[in-house]
């Protein structure tokens, strides 16, 4: 009862503030110099009072998306299209990667950076391709800064590591503000506007799959991917954690993730774990598969296999 009451009070307070902000914006609109860092008072107030993604109504999400698009326009001078792509029914995504095929080209990495509007020139890369000693699975002796003239190098094999979309995700448990959660299609997503940047999830993740925005992503305007998703590749602010989200903007409409499409070797298999005729189910049923750090009980939905 008291919860209900506080909610209604909260909402009426928000409506009042929204109206006040509208009045403020009307006043600010007459001024010549852009206040609020080029943003309108309305947008600034709107983002300040923006709720958690899962608690927002459709209208509030539409408002938030409008703010995201206007912010991208101001920041990058690009008209992006931000959508709120819902998960599909009866779909749980899984990934399988053939380590006998992977040659360490890192084409997946560069495709991912371009697709997901990642900061250029910093260490912000969702995929980390580990160069491993042949015959060993010791991750501590792996090297991901490898830069020979040609790959594959004799005596090495390559193990790309990205977010495993664990079914029992330790990062979700670590988040003190519930800014990250698992969606019905098995993808662990982040509400970048709710994240407080404490980075507990980064230490909780045994795969180092989460990355922190030490600066606002620096991307040349012409390189911005305009097709974005709210819980996906929309431009992120500084000081929040982000991670691979299996390209929600693509996979939720039936397309392959960018890393799979870019891989020239065909090492990457992506699909619906609930569909018995899917490629991924064939791999799981017929190939020798393993998962990284399986003993931790994180239940990754990312398998590695060999021919």
């Amino acid at each position, binding site marked *: 009862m008291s919860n209900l009451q506080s909610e209604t009070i909260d909402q009426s307070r928000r409506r009042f503030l929204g109206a006040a902000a509208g009045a403020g914006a009307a006043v600010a609109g007459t001024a010549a110099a852009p206040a609020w860092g080029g943003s309108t008072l309305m947008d600034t107030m709107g983002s300040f009072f923006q709720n958690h993604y899962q608690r927002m109504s459709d209208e509030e999400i539409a408002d938030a998306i409008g703010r995201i698009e206007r912010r991208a326009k101001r920041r990058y001078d690009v008209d992006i299209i931000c959508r709120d792509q819902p998960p599909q029914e009866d779909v749980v995504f899984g990934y399988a990667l053939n380590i006998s095929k992977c*040659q360490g*080209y890192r084409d997946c*990495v560069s495709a991912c950076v371009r697709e997901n509007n990642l900061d250029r020139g910093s260490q912000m890369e969702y995929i980390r391709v580990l160069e491993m000693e042949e015959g060993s699975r010791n991750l501590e002796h792996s090297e991901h800064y490898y*830069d020979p003239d040609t790959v594959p190098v004799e005596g090495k094999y390559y193990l790309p590591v990205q977010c495993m979309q664990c079914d029992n995700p330790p990062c979700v448990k670590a988040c003190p503000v519930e800014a990250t959660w698992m969606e019905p299609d098995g993808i662990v997503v982040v509400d970048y506007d709710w994240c407080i940047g404490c980075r507990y999830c980064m230490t909780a993740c045994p795969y180092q799959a989460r990355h922190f925005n030490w600066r606002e992503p620096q991307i040349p305007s012409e390189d911005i991917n305009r097709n974005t998703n709210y819980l996906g590749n929309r431009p992120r602010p500084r000081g929040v954690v982000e991670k691979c989200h299996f390209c929600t903007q693509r996979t939720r409409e039936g397309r*392959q993730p960018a890393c799979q*499409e870019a891989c020239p070797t*065909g090492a990457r298999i992506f699909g619906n774990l609930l569909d018995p005729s899917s490629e991924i189910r064939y791999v799981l049923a017929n190939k020798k598969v393993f998962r990284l750090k399986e003993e931790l009980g994180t239940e990754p939905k990312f398998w590695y296999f060999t021919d």
Partner: protein
Amino acid sequence: MRGSQSERRLLPAIALAAGLGAALLALAPAADLPPISEEGHRSLREHPPGPEPDPGPPAGFTGYPDAPQVSVVSRREALSHYPCADCHAHMPANPERRKLSAPHPGLLDHGEGRFWCLECHDADRRNELATLAGDTVSFDRADQVCGQCHGDTHRDWTFGAHGKRVEKWQGERRVYSCAHCHNPHDPAVRPRAPEGPPGIRAGLEPMPDKGRKHPPVYPWQPVDEESGHE
């Protein structure tokens, strides 16, 4: 609730008993059975099997059971000199092994010298490929030629564990053919340059030694003369 459940459990037992009774009843009148033969026992089969059907010539590859519906991206359009019959229509096929000049590929580094053109290309219908059994195969379904030797890979490709699917993970399966990725005349994949390594995080200096070498943590750790590190 509980009563109805136990009734339900009883029902199959009753049905079984009724079935047994009916079977016994059916056995009782022996008049309908086939006559006893002169040797004193009935033939084991009322309908003995006929002669084995003639298998005929072995059928070509008809696909795997339970294989998904797959459509293959056309390969013919990507061939620079297709259709081959433009030139070959008026040339008799010369089966002698020899080195071919341009526009044919000069190199045939496949099968360790066991192959020559006509192992895969049809000698008579120049616009087509041929299997070892002599069936004609379109250039678009080159997989049926490759799969004759690379059977496991062909099965994996059909089910989606090898090769690349076009654009979608959902819906109709369109896949690239073997020759889109592998040059059939020179199938080995050569090493190539990788994309660049991850950058250094903004504001940090690169490590003096790439990799896991780092300054000694404890004073008694040996120091490498060259780099000054462990």
